[in-house]
């Protein structure tokens, strides 16, 4: 399972990377915003995307939309981990096809729960 972590704060990327390692996901790569993440995703091989929303250049919501618009990437599971807490934003992300939404600050348990839920649902669908 190869996972891309996208956040403009390297501290948050490290936290998520550490938590994922605890959960047994050791194959992670990092990007600091949507515009660096997209080419990495397009180069292939990723099974899961975890992204922040509020980032310079290309925000998480734009990255999500770009992923869903790309024929190669459109079914990639996307989990949003963000401090953005407006209902409009969560609805927007849902409509854009996000698979999970975690609001910061979050706990290790929440991350585990949402990842499990995403894969559970994908298994029943697939």
């Amino acid at each position, binding site marked *: 399972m190869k996972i891309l972590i996208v*956040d403009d*704060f390297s*501290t*948050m990327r*490290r*936290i998520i990377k*550490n*938590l994922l390692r*605890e959960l047994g996901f050791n194959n992670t790569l990092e990007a600091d915003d949507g515009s660096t993440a997209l080419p990495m995703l397009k180069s292939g091989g990723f099974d899961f995307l975890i992204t922040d*929303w*509020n*980032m310079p250049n290309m*925000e*998480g*919501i734009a990255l999500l939309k770009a992923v869903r618009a790309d024929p190669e990437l459109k079914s990639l599971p996307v989990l949003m981990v*963000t*401090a*953005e*807490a*407006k*209902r*409009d*934003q*969560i*609805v*927007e992300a*849902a409509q854009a096809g996000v698979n999970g*939404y*975690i*609001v*910061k*600050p*979050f*706990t*290790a348990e*929440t991350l585990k729960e949402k990842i499990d839920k995403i894969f559970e649902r994908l298994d029943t669908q697939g």
Partner: protein
Amino acid sequence: MDSDDERLSLQLDLARRLVERLEASDLTGGDELIRQLRLPYERELFEELGKLTRELHEALNSFRGDSRLIELTRDEIPDAKERLNYVVSMTEQATHRTLNALDEAMPIAESLHERAGRLRAQWSRFRNRELSVNEFRELARELDEFLLRGEQETERVKSLLSEILMAQDYQDLTGQIIRRVIRLVQELEESLVGLIRLSSARMDRPQLTTAANADADESVAADIRGQGPIVPNTHDTVADVVNGQDDVDALLSSLGF
């Protein structure tokens, strides 16, 4: 050039007729000619006055129209103070969270270290066959307890280290808030520069209006644009926001998630 010549001959003609009138002691006719001579200058004066009035009007309008500056001073500056206060309390909380975990973990590590040292000494006496049967029984009991408690205590240390890991999320959250304040300071600086330009002798209004326009364009997608964490006691809370993960889950499940 032609119109200047024309004007000159017109004025010259009027002047000659004025002299004629005055020599004929016709004061009324003279006055009428003086009025005609003055006419072009009056028109110029009125035009200049009209231009000044228009400029004054525009300056006042853009002064009043720069509502962004009013918004900045009335809402955003007090909010910025509140944001920075929130950053101070968040960093304080994160540091206490880290230090609390350290305060608990450190004695556990020290005690594990100390007991391991004591057992190692006894163990090496056992290997050198220096222990009596009773001493060996005691060592076996101590070893049992050490292994059992060691397992529990290292588990506890691991969870305290996770607590320290999660406490570091403040850097991201406060960083987003501080960056927002930096953007505000920058915007305020631009607005003030515009205001100074406006009030200085040579007016340079375009600067101010483009700043205002740019802001209007940005506000198109403002609902959706990333803004960072919601800060209590600011205008952030006016927006319809969720209150923690449970709210997010409830909202998503209402959308069929």
